């Protein structure tokens, strides 16, 4: 039982990361019906920007005196950087194709993914880059379960970001305009909403969330790599499809489910850890086969962006 609780907690932690990335897929899909295959690269870019900033702050001696402040600054700046990067990507690779076939935009997204990944490789090298270890030490024991400080950080930050996003999308004027634009672009224009601006902001928000996830993963596993966006990107995409692509709550639920399945499979199936990546894709195939609209797709449309 203790073992299960511990694994459950691990599943939540990993699932939270997938959920953060899955939201970007689902928001962009909700608003322009594009599977943004370059989205995983924002996760990688965020992870890298985080390590670069933290290393710089460490070299200046701030990490030793104010580690948490440094983490906050690195997180904030990386999210901002990725938001701008995503807006630029959208402007260069997707906006000119706004009235083309969906296939053209999809191919443009694939090209963008390769471009960004190679850009990261060329500028940062092919080897792993190590994250500072200040935050990985320490843990809290609650009865039978041990939460590492790192897990607590990931879960806490994930929940904070999910709640903030929920507030923005459902309570603010911007969020309502995003939802209106996803429902009817012509009508939203007739009320004065500039769809291009809303689309740009949607990309920015999605990428900022992915950047936060990238930093958290970097901290958790201790390093980042130029191609780190690929596999988690596809898993997060699977999570978005599982939840019902276009649906915010679906992406959150799908992310947690995929993370949970992956961890529990690794924990309970013999040799499960060796092919844990397979489980997300088995789920993806099963969903596409049995319920293509996902868990919350089609009928539960309230949370669409």
């Amino acid at each position, binding site marked *: 039982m203790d073992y299960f609780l511990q694994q459950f907690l691990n599943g939540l932690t990993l699932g939270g990361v997938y959920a953060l990335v899955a939201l970007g897929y689902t928001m962009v899909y909700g608003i322009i019906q594009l599977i943004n295959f370059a989205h995983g690269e924002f996760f990688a870019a965020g992870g890298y920007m985080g390590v670069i900033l933290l290393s710089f702050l460490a070299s200046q001696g701030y990490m030793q005196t104010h580690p948490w402040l440094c983490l906050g600054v690195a997180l904030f700046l990386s999210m901002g950087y990725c938001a701008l990067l995503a807006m630029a990507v959208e402007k260069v690779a997707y906006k000119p194709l706004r009235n083309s076939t969906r296939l053209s935009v999809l191919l443009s997204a694939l090209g963008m993914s390769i471009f960004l990944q190679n850009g990261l490789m060329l500028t940062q090298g092919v080897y792993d880059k190590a994250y500072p270890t200040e935050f990985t030490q320490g843990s809290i024991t609650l009865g039978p379960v041990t939460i590492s400080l790192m897990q607590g950080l990931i879960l806490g930050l994930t929940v904070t970001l999910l709640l903030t996003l929920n507030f923005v999308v459902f309570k603010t004027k911007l969020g*309502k305009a995003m939802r209106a634009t996803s*429902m009817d672009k012509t009508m939203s*224009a*007739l009320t*004065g909403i500039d769809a291009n601006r809303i689309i740009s902001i949607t990309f920015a928000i999605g990428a900022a969330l992915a950047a936060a996830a990238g930093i958290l993963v970097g901290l958790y596993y201790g390093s980042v790599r130029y191609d780190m966006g690929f596999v988690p990107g596809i898993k997060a995409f699977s999570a978005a499809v599982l939840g019902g692509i276009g649906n915010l709550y679906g992406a959150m639920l799908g992310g947690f489910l995929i993370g949970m399945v992956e961890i529990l499979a690794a924990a309970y199936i013999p040799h499960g850890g060796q092919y844990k990546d397979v489980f997300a894709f088995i789920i993806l195939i099963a969903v596409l086969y049995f319920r293509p609209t996902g868990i919350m797709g089609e009928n539960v449309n309230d949370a669409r962006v």
Partner: protein
Amino acid sequence: MTHAHAHRPPLLELKEVDACYGRIQALKGVSLKIFPGEIVTIIGANGAGKSTTLMTICGVVKASAGSIVYDGSPIRGVPPHALPKRGLIQVPEGRRIFPRLTVMENLEMGAYLRRDAAGIRDDQEMVFELFPKLKERAHQHGGTLSGGEQQMLAIARALMGRPTLLLLDEPSLGLSPLFAKHIFQIIRTVNAERGMTILLVEQNANIALQMAHRGYVLETGRVVLEDDARALLHNPEIRKAYLGE
């Protein structure tokens, strides 16, 4: 009515406007004028280009020739989202309520560009007074409303933008006669009491001509006739072609 406005510049003027809808030329040299305070109607058969005319004015359909001048400045080529803040607002055909936004949120979107919180609240009260049904449904999703309620919401949403010129596309479509009457009553009220200028596209030519000051008859993308509404109403040809006689 024409004469009363003759000395004032028109609020909207289309000159020789061409527009294509897909590969079909939907408007062929359409010219029309609307003076401040008027209700002008465009009547015509299905596919005559009535809706296209409104969509072209709003920039959703791009005019391929001609000029469109609104409130003294050319608006041909201006993106659609830049027009509502100048007071040019359309209630499009089919209502196009945001189905998964609540009635309240739909109204909020109507006031998207406004920053005057107090004025927005006042206007909200005003539209709830005009359409008490909407107040009852304030927190329901737009998609759950009946057709008539959705039409009310579409008009209310447009009013939230404080239009100077309101373009209405088939506001009576699919409504019961009683509901339609109510809608037309509201249109007359906002015109008379708020001085709102209205361009009305209607299949029900009879009721449209009774309400309007002037009318244009559109046939296959061309204006074939323009006159005072009363004169059109009594024009035997119009009566035969559009009033079912």
